[in-house]
């Protein structure tokens, strides 16, 4: 308890001491202090500080050195760095001052817990200044009498300390005030300098850690002067057109130093300066005449100066001044050339004279006009023709001949020497040889081998060849001793036509031409290829040449690339002059893709793909197949025709059966007594009521022929003959019946049949017109050969004329019934009928049903009927009656009873148990 109060008292005492000042003026005395007080330390060095406690604190507060702790910026210094020197002194040591920070404080732990600050110091760490290096000085002239000397140096590394730099200079017997730089540490300007005395100059750098001096610089300031540039430069024209006089003022007095000068000049607009030889201006002066200038040319001048002996610095260039030289007469005549247009008439030329405007250095002034003189050399008496032209071309209409054209350029001072061009009647002289070109950077060099004769000049013409514009000729004249020139302004990737003419003293050589490119590129597009002709194994390809604008270079070759869909690409190189090529060894009936590539020296470019398919058959193959087939077909047709011709009677019989002419029928033949004689009397007996008084059934079987004996067929042949003989009685309606419908055909067959079956059978010729395709068929009964009493009286009279012969015929017809099937051998006709029957299925539904009910479930058809063929043949009449199988044909032709038969000419259909009108 006591101890706690004791430490509290100590702490209070310490606070009083710390907060007090010295006894003389302060309130409280400090308990200790640190040595050294705020030191400046070299970076990286070691450092030891001592904290010394006051004795008074020891006695009152029981504070001793072993209780001292050191801190750097509130960070505790490890106790390994402490050392207790005695009971009042503690030291701390830092091996490297770079670990130091500000402040470094000495603290004490009162009662082992309460930390009290005793003292603190500021530690400054830095570097000593390095020796300044690279000291150099220059004296600038500020005005006519004012010179300042500026010295610069390299201050060296950063010291982290306040470092003073001083520029010092002195004479051996006199020391001048130091020059202290402001705001910088690497330069200083001395305003009070004296020339002609060697002055020692050096730099001194100093800070808290040391001082360093640069190596001294000993010099006479006059040797490092950069004078002011000459002032008030004037340029005046001299008497001569090639001279301009410059005058100026110097700022530097001769007493200080003698000057030499540089004079530079250039033509206005030109960027390159020319200089007057330095030896011409190596002495003091205030004027100079620049010679060798171009007349009538504006020049820009500038001057600078320095000490005559060359020691020191050049001044800046003076401001630029311009001057214009006076005019002089043109130094040379213009280059002249011509283009002769003889297209209108070979005997009369249109001569386009053209000449180059003189360059400024040749014109020596403003060319006011050109004087053109034309002399006809072929006739001495012809007068000179003179023209004053202000442009650079002139067109003359001249008869074919030899002319000498002279052009003179004239300015305000005088005339140029004349330029002469000889225009011969023909260019009969030797041309140049071995004309060639060679690209050289952005120029195109044109070279040639001179002819054997002496050549005055060469004219080089060139023009850009384009498909979209005319060839605009440019030209140039080269002297006769050269064998090559550079053409400028040549565009890359463009084709140029270059022509060289040699000009002789007495004539002109013919031109030699060459086409050239400055630079080639690959074509801008590829050729578009297409086929001209495609065969089985070959294809003829055609294409158009690329235009000259598209070529971008010389086309060295074309490459045709073709392939099948899944095949490898095949390349064929083609000469560039060709526009057609035949691909051979192709696979037939194969799709090929072909494209074409045009190549220059610098690359290739392909055109669009084109596809074609080779033919399946080669040339003549189809003909080889088709012609024999056609011939065979024709042969078959011919044979068929011959066959038909031979069998025309049979065919006619089936196609155009003889339709009995009702007008020839005899009413007596179908009188009631006649049927009584017929074999079919039993029918009447079976159907006394007359519902089915007379039904004849004819079954037409294609194969029934087999079942018929020859004996049976004989009567049929007779019948055929009968029919043929009775052809004249058949009506046209009957002829169309076979062609129109099966029903008709059947009817036709039945017609003969029914006429055979019984003399009392009503013979009909029923014409049933099927509708065309989907059209509703119109059924018309057109004719009947019936002798039944339904007919009108007038018909009876006609029928009556038939005579009794018909009875025998009918008998034969009946016999012919079996032979009717034999007629089925005429298959085309019957098959066609069957097809039509199928087509008219709707019309026949009723028949089918009737047949099924009687005998078989098979569909209606000849096949079904075939099954019952024999029965049908043997029991024709029974079948018709007992079986009660109602055949359509029979139904149609079923003779109605007289009572029930409508007195109509309309067709009638009989169904089982009655008959229905159709």
């Amino acid at each position, binding site marked *: 308890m006591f101890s706690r109060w004791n430490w509290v008292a100590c702490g209070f005492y310490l606070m009083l001491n710390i907060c007090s000042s010295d006894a003389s003026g302060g309130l409280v005395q400090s308990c200790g202090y640190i040595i050294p007080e705020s030191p400046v330390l070299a970076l990286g060095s070691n450092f030891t500080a001592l904290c010394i406690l006051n004795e008074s604190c020891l006695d009152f507060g029981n504070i001793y050195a072993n209780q001292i702790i050191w801190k750097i910026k509130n960070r505790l210094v490890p106790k390994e760095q402490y050392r207790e020197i005695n009971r009042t002194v503690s030291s701390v040591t830092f091996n490297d001052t770079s670990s130091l920070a500000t402040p470094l404080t000495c603290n004490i732990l009162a009662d082992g817990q309460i930390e009290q600050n005793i003292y603190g110091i500021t530690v400054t760490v830095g570097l000593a200044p390095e020796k300044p290096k690279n000291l150099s000085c220059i004296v600038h002239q500020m005005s006519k009498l004012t010179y300042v000397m500026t010295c610069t140096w390299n201050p060296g590394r950063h010291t982290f300390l306040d470092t003073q730099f001083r520029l010092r200079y002195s004479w051996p017997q006199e020391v001048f005030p130091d020059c202290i730089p402001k705001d910088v540490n690497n330069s200083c300007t001395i305003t*009070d300098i004296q*020339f002609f005395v060697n002055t020692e100059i050096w730099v001194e750098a100093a800070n808290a850690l040391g001082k360093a001096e640069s190596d001294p610089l000993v010099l006479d300031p006059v040797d490092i002067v950069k004078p002011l540039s000459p002032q008030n430069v004037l340029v005046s024209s001299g008497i001569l057109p090639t001279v301009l006089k410059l005058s100026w003022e110097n700022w530097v007095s001769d007493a200080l130093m003698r000057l030499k000068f540089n004079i530079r000049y250039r033509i206005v607009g030109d960027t390159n300066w020319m200089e007057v030889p330095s030896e011409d201006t190596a002495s003091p002066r205030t004027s100079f005449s620049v010679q060798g200038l171009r007349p009538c040319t504006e020049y820009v001048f500038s001057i600078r100066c320095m000490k005559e002996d060359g020691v020191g610095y050049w001044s800046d260039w003076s401001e630029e001044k311009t001057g214009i030289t006076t005019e002089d007469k043109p130094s040379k005549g213009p280059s002249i050339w011509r283009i002769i247009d003889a297209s209108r008439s070979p005997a009369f030329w249109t001569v386009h004279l053209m000449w180059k405007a003189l360059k400024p250095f040749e014109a020596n002034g403003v060319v006011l006009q050109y004087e053109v003189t034309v002399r006809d050399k072929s006739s001495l008496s012809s007068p000179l023709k003179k023209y004053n032209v202000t442009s650079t071309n002139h067109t003359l209409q001249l008869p074919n001949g030899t002319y000498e054209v002279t052009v003179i350029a004239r300015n305000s001072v005088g005339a140029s020497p004349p330029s002469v061009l000889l225009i011969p009647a023909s260019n009969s002289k030797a041309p140049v040889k071995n004309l060639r070109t060679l690209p050289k950077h952005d120029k195109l060099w044109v070279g040639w081998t001179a002819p054997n004769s002496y050549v005055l000049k060469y004219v080089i013409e060139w023009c850009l060849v384009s498909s979209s514009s005319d060839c605009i000729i440019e030209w140039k004249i080269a002297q006769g001793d050269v064998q090559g020139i550079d053409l400028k302004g040549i565009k890359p990737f463009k084709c140029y036509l270059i022509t060289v003419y040699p000009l002789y003293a007495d004539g002109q050589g013919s031109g030699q031409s060459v086409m050239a490119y400055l630079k080639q590129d690959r074509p801008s597009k590829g050729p578009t290829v297409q086929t001209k002709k495609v065969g089985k194994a070959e294809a003829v390809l055609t294409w158009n040449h690329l235009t000259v604008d598209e070529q971008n270079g010389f086309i060295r070759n074309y490459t045709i690339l073709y392939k099948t869909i899944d095949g490898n690409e095949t390349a064929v190189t083609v000469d560039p002059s060709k526009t057609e090529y035949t691909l051979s060894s192709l696979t037939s009936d194969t799709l090929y893709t072909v494209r074409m590539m045009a190549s220059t020296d610098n690359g290739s470019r392909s055109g669009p793909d084109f596809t074609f398919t080779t033919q399946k058959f080669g040339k003549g193959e189809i003909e080889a197949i088709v012609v024999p087939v056609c011939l065979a077909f024709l042969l078959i047709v011919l044979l068929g025709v011959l066959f038909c011709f031979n069998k025309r009677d049979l065919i006619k019989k089936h196609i155009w059966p003889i339709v009995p002419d009702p007008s020839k029928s005899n009413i007596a033949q179908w009188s009631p007594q006649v049927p009584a004689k017929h074999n079919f009397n039993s029918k009447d007996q079976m159907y006394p009521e007359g519902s089915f008084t007379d039904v004849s059934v004819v079954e037409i079987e294609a194969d029934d022929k087999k079942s018929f004996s020859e004996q049976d067929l004989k009567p049929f042949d007779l019948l055929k003959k009968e029919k043929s003989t009775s052809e004249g009685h058949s009506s046209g309606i009957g002829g169309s019946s076979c062609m129109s419908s099966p029903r008709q055909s059947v009817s036709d067959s039945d017609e003969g049949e029914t006429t055979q079956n019984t003399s009392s059978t009503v013979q009909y010729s029923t014409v049933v017109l099927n509708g065309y395709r989907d059209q509703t068929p119109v059924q018309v009964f057109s004719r009947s050969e019936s002798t039944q009493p339904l007919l009108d009286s007038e018909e009876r009279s006609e029928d009556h004329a038939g005579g009794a012969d018909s009875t025998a015929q009918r008998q034969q017809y009946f016999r012919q019934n079996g032979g009717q099937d034999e007629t089925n051998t005429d298959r085309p006709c019957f098959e066609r009928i069957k097809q039509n029957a199928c087509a008219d299925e709707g019309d026949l539904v009723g028949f089918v049903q009737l047949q099924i009910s009687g005998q078989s479930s098979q569909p209606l058809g000849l096949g079904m009927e075939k099954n019952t063929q024999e029965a049908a043949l043997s029991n024709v009449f029974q079948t018709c009656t007992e079986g009660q199988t109602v055949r359509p044909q029979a139904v149609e032709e079923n003779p109605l009873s007289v009572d029930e038969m409508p007195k109509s000419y309309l067709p009638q259909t009989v169904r089982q148990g009655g008959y229905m009108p159709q």
Partner: protein
Amino acid sequence: MAAAESPSAALRRRDLCSRGIRLAGKMRADVVDLLDAYVERQGLDASASVAAVEGVPPAAVERWDEQTGTQRLLENLAAYRAFRALLAQMLEEQREQLGEADTGLGRALAAVLLQVSAFAYHLEELLRLESRGIPGEEGDGPPPPPRLSLFEQKLRGLGVLRELAQWAVRSARDLRQLAKPSLATDAATSLAESP
């Protein structure tokens, strides 16, 4: 002696002579300019005649061309030492009279004073090259002039500047003579023979 002169010494001598000549020329030009400014500033008549300045050897001498090099150097050194003292006095008087108001004239005086000092240094160096001892300055230079009136001070200043201008011309001529190798030899010989 000349043969014994090392090339570097000869070079040094030629350099000193050259610089001295140019310094003399510059000094004369500056003094002439200063004279104009001084006359104008002090309100004097440029044509006013001034008595010879005491303590300054006259620039004009008889048989100038017969003088040896050393004689020339010594006379020049004596004269310029005198000018240095006189100009320093003038500068002091100038400051007393005009204060800081006329810094231009004061700077020009100071510049001429520096040139005079520099020229004296040149002469001393040349004398060293001649292997001659440099005569010591007599005390603090010429005896202090009696107290003069302001006008007399101005006139004396005018006389100093005029004499300095003449000396500058003569000094240049003297150094040109010294720069000639034969004369340099003569000077060396005469110096060797002199007691």
